[in-house]
């Protein structure tokens, strides 16, 4: 099987070379498989004959379905924009991992097998932990666009991400909310059966300790829970100045609604899972005063972001969320990595991703550090009159 595929791609590569009558003398050190993806020139002048295949495995259905749809929109919009530029064309394939690690694994196996140059996704961290080893073993670069748990990029040297970790966003969120609300005594709640929310909780607890805040009580729930009244009553009895919650949006909405019903009107400060406009549509007035740290400032006026907001609204008739922005930025980053070596092959993209420094994107100026994690400024938002505003 492997030999067949190899011969086939090599033959296709040879054919492409013959047709274009153009010998490639740079960036061709990838091995035969990706021959047609090596081009000439560099940066804006780079021309690659073949289409660079980009595979995305995101959760279009299931618990994380609302995130995945935004991601698909962001990726498709970015691909359209990139393909309008001269030189390099991307062939984007978006598949649904159904918020199921098993499904993600089989999608990753598919992408590794069909010559895809880079894999984007999957949407959730605990899915990523199970699917990424497939790509690492198959030596295909992965760019995570929404995974915020610690340890995602530690799985191997082929794994990169453009999403800030909880470890980067939460300390800024905690520090800014402590200052803005003058917090002294808080309650922490988190779902303890999900990798993402658990790692979020650990950072939260650490930052609260660093700020010398008293944690009156720590309450756990399951990510499938929908009735939080018993926990919230417990929280209320502690008379906190604020409640910190690490949970997914599915839990966030009933939790916030029920808290307000019980008369808990203190600020609720959420992790990345709360960072979703659905919170305001479904929880309504109850969402007022919820504070969320985010990797993307929707109100930012940098030129990349302004253009993105306009194009997204024109295309999808609604405002983008952070997941769409991170997905869009991923394509910008990949494009930069491809054009740098002017090669759409797996090895070349991997090398290019390692050299991203101060690249302007919709997320702001982004760099990828030696741990293959993205670094850029976070923003702390608060829900006011049904939409996110910057906390100050």
């Amino acid at each position, binding site marked *: 099987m492997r030999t067949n595929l190899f011969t086939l791609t090599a033959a296709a590569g040879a054919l492409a070379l013959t047709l274009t009558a153009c010998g490639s003398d740079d960036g061709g050190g990838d091995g035969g498989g990706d021959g047609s993806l090596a081009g000439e020139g560099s940066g804006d002048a780079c021309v690659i004959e073949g289409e660079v295949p980009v595979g995305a495995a995101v959760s279009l*259905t*299931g*618990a994380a*379905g*609302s995130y995945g749809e935004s991601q698909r929109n962001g990726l498709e919009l970015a691909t359209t924009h990139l393909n309008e530029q001269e030189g390099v064309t991307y062939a984007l394939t978006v598949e649904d991992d*159904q918020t199921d690690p098993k499904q993600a694994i089989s999608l990753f196996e598919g992408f590794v097998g069909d010559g895809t140059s880079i894999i984007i996704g999957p949407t959730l961290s605990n899915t990523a932990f199970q699917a990424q080893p497939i790509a690492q073993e198959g030596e295909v670069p992965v760019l995570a666009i929404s995974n915020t748990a610690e340890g995602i990029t530690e799985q191997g040297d082929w794994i990169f991400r453009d999403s800030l970790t909880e470890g980067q966003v939460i300390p800024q969120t905690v520090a800014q909310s402590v200052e803005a609300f003058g917090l002294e005594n808080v309650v922490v709640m988190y779902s*303890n059966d999900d990798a993402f929310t658990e790692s979020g909780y650990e950072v939260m607890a650490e930052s609260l300790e660093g700020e010398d805040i008293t944690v009156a009580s720590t*309450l*756990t*729930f399951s990510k*499938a829970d*929908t*009735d939080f*009244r*018993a*926990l919230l*009553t*417990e929280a*209320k009895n502690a008379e906190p100045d604020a409640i910190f919650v690490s949970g997914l949006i*599915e839990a966030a*909405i*009933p939790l916030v*609604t*029920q808290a307000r*019903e*019980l*008369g808990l009107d203190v600020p609720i400060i959420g992790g990345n899972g709360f960072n979703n406009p659905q919170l305001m*549509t*479904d*929880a*309504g*007035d109850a969402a007022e005063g919820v504070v969320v740290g985010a990797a993307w400032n929707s109100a930012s006026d940098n030129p990349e972001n302004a253009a993105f907001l306009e194009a997204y609204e024109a295309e999808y008739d609604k405002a983008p969320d952070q997941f769409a922005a991170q997905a869009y930025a991923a394509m910008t980053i990949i494009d930069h990595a491809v054009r740098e070596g002017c090669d759409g092959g797996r090895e070349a993209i991997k090398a290019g991703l390692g050299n991203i420094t101060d690249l302007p994107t919709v997320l702001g100026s982004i760099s990828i550090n030696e741990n293959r994690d993205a670094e850029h400024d976070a923003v702390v938002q608060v829900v006011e009159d049904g939409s996110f505003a910057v906390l100050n």
Partner: protein
Amino acid sequence: MQQLLNGLFIGAIYALFAIGFTLVFGVLDRLNLAHPAVFAVSAFVGIELVEVAGLSIWLTLPIVFVVGGILGMVIERVAFRPLKDRPDAHFAGLISSIALAGMFIALLQWRYGPDTRRFPADSFPSTTFTVFGAQVTVVQVAILVISVVLMVALTVLVARSRLGRGMRAVAENPTAARVLGINVDRVTMTTFAISSALGAVAGALFAMNVNSAQLTMGTAIELKGLAVIIVGGMGSLPGALVGGLLLGLAEVFAVQYIGSSWRDLVAFGLLFLILLVRPQGLFGARKVREV
């Protein structure tokens, strides 16, 4: 006080769900595992009625009750009646009802997709009462009242009415009931309809209580329903009521006094303890089976 009320509200829903479960078991000696699916279906139907038809949440409840009743008849017709003459009818019915439950959920997924659904944000009255320092919403009061009224009505129905006598006769001995001129098939079907109608109302109330409906919500409550009817005494209606409230309270007080991570362990542990002390359940009579 707040915790006590929290426990009562969730317990009332458990009880209403379990009482439908136990009715079919008590009268017909069959375990209907499509019951949790009815619970989920009705929650989605309720949301659809509010969202698309624009009905008030109170008006959806009688409709959901009827929908549940119809589903109950379908369950009886499809999953139980064709198999009733088999010597292994207990297990065959149990398994075919699981299959039917799978089909209901698949249909739900086809119609609504796998995402969590919610009532529109403004469909609930926002009034809250303060009872002994505890915050209570209109919906929660309604849940408690509706559950209790339905359960009392059912108990009266079984004890007093002609249909109830028919049910008890069938429960005692189907063949003898037939000899006495009771239409056993009709009684059986009515029992299923009532049971599912109660399960359906429980589903809609649950969805209102937490404002979310998921495809898996039936599976989540199935285990609790089974635990409740075993602890209450299989087939005992007051047993299901007390068992349901007990489980709701046990969960809440486990959170308060022991810790939220221990909730399920403590709640189910307590039920297990009751079974060790009273193997027949709280209200179950020890049955002597004639062979």
